[in-house]
């Protein structure tokens, strides 16, 4: 187990290193930061001074080495726009994004999996077919457009829910949270729904496919032949078999939800790191872009390791060692 963990962490570190190189070359070497930093009318001397100050006259590998050294100390550069450390800026915005992503993922799990079970168990019934048809629609709806429709319907026409920002927040451990206040929760509903919709459709389809795969298996027929109640067959025998692959997907999809928060945050003006990255791309605030990407990469690597571990814990067949055959 320990060896497996170390191996996975090393692989993760390799991915982080590879991505940092790609991101660094991409963001710093292809463009010319000097162009953005200084007044276009500045003379050659100023230009050279700034270039030297930023170390841009050095060979690429030296620049990269400096970047890595600084990054390892938590210094990812300073935002051109806000003039504060980029890492700090990202971390400050992260809780809002995580709050949104976790809520959306929970919604997807709590709505998608039960609906998928129904769609798979009663395949021929009209409601099961409706669920499946609905999931195709959910798959086809572009997230950003659904966001607009939600704003239009619930914000403008019905005027039921707020559509901009996080609302009132409460500070816990120095971090602001929306879900702890009624106003904050109301602000959370629409963006989280928007972000969850695609994943609900995905989980419906995956759960349904899993049910269809497990139901005809002998051990389910055997459970029926032994007089086990159908509800119990579903909750113990079917669900446990489906959950193993689903956990993997949930982990990976959580990462994807964090990435897709970019869209939802932009539409609902949710002050998370997704909205920040779009603003930074539009303003060419390179240190923030790099910081965001590095934080995301690390986050993905962690998610992947956690998912692998969970998988090993859940599925006896991949349990590492311990076979007494």
């Amino acid at each position, binding site marked *: 187990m320990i060896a497996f963990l170390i191996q996975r962490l090393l692989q993760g570190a390799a*991915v982080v290193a*590879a991505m940092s190189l790609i*991101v660094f070359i*991409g*963001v710093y070497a*292809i*463009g010319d930061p000097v162009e953005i930093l200084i007044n276009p009318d500045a003379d050659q001397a100023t230009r050279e001074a700034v270039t030297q100050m930023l170390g841009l006259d050095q060979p690429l590998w030296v620049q990269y080495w400096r970047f890595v050294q600084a990054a390892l100390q938590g210094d990812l550069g300073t935002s051109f726009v806000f003039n504060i450390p980029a890492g700090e800026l990202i971390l400050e915005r992260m809780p809002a994004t995580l709050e949104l992503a976790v809520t959306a993922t929970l919604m997807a799990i709590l709505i998608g999996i039960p609906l998928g079970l129904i769609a798979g168990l009663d395949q021929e019934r009209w409601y099961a077919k409706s669920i499946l048809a609905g999931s*195709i*629609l959910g*798959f*086809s*709806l*572009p*997230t*950003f*457009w659904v966001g*607009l*429709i939600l*704003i*239009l319907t619930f914000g*403008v026409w019905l005027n039921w829910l707020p559509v901009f920002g996080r609302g009132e927040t409460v500070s816990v451990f120095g971090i602001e949270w929306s879900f702890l206040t009624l106003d904050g929760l109301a602000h959370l509903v629409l963006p989280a729904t928007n972000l969850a919709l695609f994943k609900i459709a995905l989980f419906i389809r995956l759960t349904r496919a899993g049910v269809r*795969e497990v139901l005809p298996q002998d051990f389910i027929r055997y459970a029926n032949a032994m007089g086990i109640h159908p509800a119990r067959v579903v909750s113990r025998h079917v669900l446990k078999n489906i959950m193993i692959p689903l956990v993997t997907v949930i982990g*990976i999809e959580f*990462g*994807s939800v964090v*990435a*897709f928060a*970019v*869209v939802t945050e*932009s539409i609902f003006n949710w002050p998370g790191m997704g909205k920040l*990255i*779009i603003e930074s*791309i*539009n303003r060419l605030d390179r240190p923030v*872009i790099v910081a965001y*990407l590095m934080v*995301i*990469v690390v986050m*993905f690597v962690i998610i*992947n390791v956690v998912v692998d571990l969970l998988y090993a814990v859940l599925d006896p067949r991949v349990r590492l060692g311990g076979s007494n055959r």
Partner: protein
Amino acid sequence: MSDTAFIAPPRRAVRLRALAAFGAAFAESPAALAGALVFVALVLAAVFAPLIAPQNPYDLAKLSILDARLPPGSVAMSGYTHILGTDGLGRDLFSAILYGLRISLMVGALSAFVALIIGTVLGLTAAYVGGRIDSAIMRLVDLQMSFPAILIALILLAILGRGADKTMIALIAVQWAYYARTVRASALVEREREYIEAAQGLRLGHVRILMRHLLPNCIAPLLVVVTVQMAHAITLEATLSFLGVGLPETQPSLGLLIANGYQYMLGGSYWISIYPGVALLIVMVAINLMGDRLRDLFNPALKR
């Protein structure tokens, strides 16, 4: 070695018959058939947009700011009825949607096609050559697939900047790995078959073996991936354009039309965003219905 070992994969007549049977099986699902018909209609509408559209929305001489933000069904100064209304600049929305559809489908199809070729070449190479080249290609595939498409596209566009060509590069970059993985998997299965060994024994050229023997067997799974990926590419482009990092203002795809309408939406001119979105939705549903059916047909586990 058995007699059948030297029989190559299907010949033309057999292929035609197989194609007809496949078409019949596909059409057994009314939803899939409807999806295919709608998709064909949309493609035709996009191709012939300049002929169908009542107005050239980008001919500035024809635009009048006085016609801006007319609700659906309004009659313009010129006496023309705008069935879907007009946008913020007084363009006929129906015409703008037809032109937008053209751009969206073109970007989606073209990027899917280029990604298909890159992915197929890399996938076949990985399967056929094996060894280090195989593991190098697959590492790259794994790396790409472990990050969500939108993230990779954002990174690339952050580096490259906005633009039609750059958007296409980003779309290709997020798609190729799916093709490569699919082709490699199918090719690996086929590679083990006797007739490939036989073909190698006959010293047929590598390219010939690849093209005539391995590739045809990858087509079925590839078709499924193409539909899925094209749908992905179209939404992703729309999303990126909506966020303002994709296509430039001069090439207004459906995503950009929606983004342009966003600013007027809260003011009550909802149609400018809604109708391009509906058009996008119809495209997606049509493609996904076809994709679902293809997946069912090619999944041997689901065959009755």
